[in-house]
């Protein structure tokens, strides 16, 4: 198992001991009536296997992106544990990555996990060239030989089907779709085990969307890594994922094979979601 998320919660606000019980999909609210805290993520359990592609769908505000950011540790969780890729301490006890010291977190984020954001400005450093952005991750994963770094950058520029002559251009000089490709190249250049994608194609032209989704899928099959994709677009989920989870008010309401969920949704909310979009 690559990723094991156990009972993870994220509460914004003072929080009381009844927050988790009084919110969620059954209570049909995300705000605790006792203390007015916002329960963004409520006791989520989730696993991902090697090479598995997992989709997260749900309405806006349901906690999809928050969950992704918790796994990537852009924000810290209120409670729960996450185990990743068999990471353990010297005595063989599995390590909760939410409790790792900062140096290990940055190593995890620089090498083992990558995040692709909806907005390329979050994932790319606009002060560095396209090649420099890719190089940053290769360097972050420990490489200190110039020729290897350069070769790696060129290789990933090639993999995202971009002309290698543009390697030293700056992100500003690329189109939105190209920036997203560079972000993908950067994220994959450290050969991560897990790729997290937060609405990777939202806001792009439909034809560009399709090309980028194909590219992601090809690279996934070629390189072999797991993915978790957050999207409100069921088309994207259908195209890419093996397994889909549906979120509402910070809780998981349905979990299953993507085909099954789209063809035969069980939870009333999923039924509503599928019928309203497809």
């Amino acid at each position, binding site marked *: 198992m690559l990723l094991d998320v156990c009972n993870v919660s994220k509460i914004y606000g003072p929080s009381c001991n009844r927050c988790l019980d009084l919110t969620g999909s059954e209570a049909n609210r995300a705000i605790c009536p006792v203390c007015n805290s916002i329960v963004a993520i409520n006791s989520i359990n989730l696993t991902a296997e090697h090479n598995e592609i997992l989709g997260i769908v749900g309405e806006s505000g349901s906690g999809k992106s928050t969950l992704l950011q918790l796994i990537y540790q852009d924000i810290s969780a209120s409670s729960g544990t996450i185990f990743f890729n068999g990471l353990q301490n010297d005595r063989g006890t599995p390590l909760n990555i939410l409790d790792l010291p*900062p*140096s290990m977190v*940055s190593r995890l984020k*620089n090498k083992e996990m990558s995040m692709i954001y909806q907005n390329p400005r979050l994932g790319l*450093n606009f*002060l*560095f*060239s396209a*090649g*420099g*952005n890719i*190089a*940053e*991750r290769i*360097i*972050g994963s420990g490489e*200190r*030989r*110039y*020729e*290897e*770094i*350069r070769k790696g950058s060129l290789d990933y520029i090639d993999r995202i089907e971009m002309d290698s002559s543009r*390697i*030293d251009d700056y992100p500003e000089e690329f189109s939105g779709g190209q920036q997203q490709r560079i972000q993908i190249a950067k994220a994959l250049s450290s050969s991560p085990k897990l790729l997290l994608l937060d609405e990777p194609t939202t806001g792009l032209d439909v034809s560009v969307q399709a090309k980028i989704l194909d590219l992601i899928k090809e690279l996934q099959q070629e390189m072999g890594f797991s993915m978790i994709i957050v999207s409100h677009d069921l088309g994207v989920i259908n195209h890419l994922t093996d397994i889909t989870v549906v979120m509402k008010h910070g809780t998981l309401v349905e979990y299953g094979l993507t085909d099954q969920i789209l063809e035969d949704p069980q939870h009333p909310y999923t039924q509503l979601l599928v019928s309203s979009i497809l």
Partner: protein
Amino acid sequence: MNSSTFAFLDEDAKKEIRRSLLKAVAIPGYIVPFASREMPVARGWGTGGLQITLSIIVESDTLKVIDQGCDGSVNAVNIRDFITSVTGVESSNETSAATLIQTRHRIPEEKLKDNQILVYQVPYPEVLTTVEPDTAKQKQMHGDGDYSKLWVLLYEDTSQYGDSRISNRYPVLVNKHYVMDPSPIPKYDIPVMNNNSALQLFGAGREKRIYAIPPYTDVRPLKFDDREFKVENFSGIACERCGATDVFFDEVRRGNKSSFFCSDTAFCDAQLEKNNAA
């Protein structure tokens, strides 16, 4: 000038600066904040170095002050006059005679000994400012030893210009942990910092920061494993005044013709004397 206390600063100020110095020496390359008092010269004119010198100077010291290697430049003369007037210590131009050397932009050519202290005047103490303006993130990066952004600058220069474009203030890795700004000394002086017998102290008065390299500390320029660290090339050049070779030169242009002179004037004088004696 009559001063109520020895060395201008009051004893509390000296004590505070000495405490910062002790911490800086204990953690080589780590930047320590200090209060930075008002001095009778404007901030940015060597007040950091001046305060360190005044805090550690004792009656038995012999002082040398240089600016760009020169004992006779206006700034060096004024700082030396000020320090001798408030302490009564002897001063000398001779590097080997001095126990305390305050410098701006150069390390003396003559090899330093372990009874000597070299105090640098520093304009920009934080090496990460160029790549990360957020001070909180800078601290985090130093703590994690995450200098990949500096490496990316090196990568970009190497890919676009063949080598680093940094001529002075070349980042150095101190004691295999902290990367620090060596102050605007030329690349030529960087190898001299490594394993130096003298204690090296750095003071930035305007930025209120102190850092240090203890004697015999490992100091390495950031460079790729498969690239050489190249210093200024003066092959075939000799000083027009004393005939010295293998030193750092100042270039003086007259019309279309360049003349070269030792940047270290005390060294040049000594060479000249040796030549005349022979």
